[in-house]
């Protein structure tokens, strides 16, 4: 485990380490079971295409969870996240192969708030395209 980030170490513009993950079909099955979101568009290609999607897509909340992981890995204190919000703008199509889809998360400190709180804005992309039009965490540092 890395040391916790301290408030004194942070300024507006501080960048989080970039995080690159891959999402495969197996990850979608695992997330469906863990979250209870069994929507068929996340595991059934036939149904996904029938409703007009290009293929099986990742759960938005899986993408959001991966993005939050970049924040908790940086703070080294998941309990520090007091607010987290996302807006979904583009689905991630997950191909039926072993490589899956790549998700890249970048983040930077966007504002220092009151009471040691810090706002982190995330940029989450897959295949060079933004998949979340907004992803923002507020963390309480000491």
């Amino acid at each position, binding site marked *: 485990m890395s040391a916790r980030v301290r408030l004194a170490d942070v300024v507006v513009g501080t960048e989080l380490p970039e995080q690159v993950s891959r999402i495969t079909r197996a990850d979608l099955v695992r997330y469906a079971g863990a979250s*209870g*979101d069994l929507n068929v568009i996340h595991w059934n290609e036939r149904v996904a295409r029938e409703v007009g999607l290009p293929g099986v897509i990742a759960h938005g909340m899986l993408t959001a969870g991966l993005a939050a992981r970049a924040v908790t890995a940086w703070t080294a204190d998941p309990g520090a996240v007091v607010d987290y919000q996302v807006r979904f703008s583009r689905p991630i199509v997950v191909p039926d192969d072993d490589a899956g889809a790549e998700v890249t998360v970048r983040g930077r400190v966007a504002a220092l708030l009151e009471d040691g709180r810090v706002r982190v804005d995330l940029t989450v992309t897959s295949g060079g395209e933004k998949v979340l039009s907004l992803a923002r965490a507020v963390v309480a540092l000491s």
Partner: protein
Amino acid sequence: MALDAGLVGRSYPPSAVYEVGREKIAEFATALGDPDPVYRDPVAARAAGHPDVIAPPTFAIVLSLGAGNVVVEDPDVGIDYSRVVHGEQRFTHHRPITAGDRLVATASIHAVRTVAGNDMLTTRVDLATEDGEPVCTTTSMLVARGSA
């Protein structure tokens, strides 16, 4: 079908108690590929200042999905679930969700809008212990795409 603005503020009866288990938290963390020991090891969690293992920041979706169903299934809401996509999600944590918590979820309708034939329904779910301590507030915006 446009959503009725009069639905805003409608609240639903509290859910049954959901007991947060260590294994469920670990399963959720694994599904996110997150190896952090505070999600698995009570000793590591206590060393980090928590009474037991804590849940990842997005774990509350497990409870809010279930609680939000009462809104989607409300005949007065009349949303077509087959056309629904997740638009936005927010979690406000009053403290981390912790193994052993016995949580009650209370859903309410926070906002409704219709934009370009798409219905947008924002549901708020308040998670509190059965003793009434607030733990987390989630807001979920669902978009029901118009069939035009």
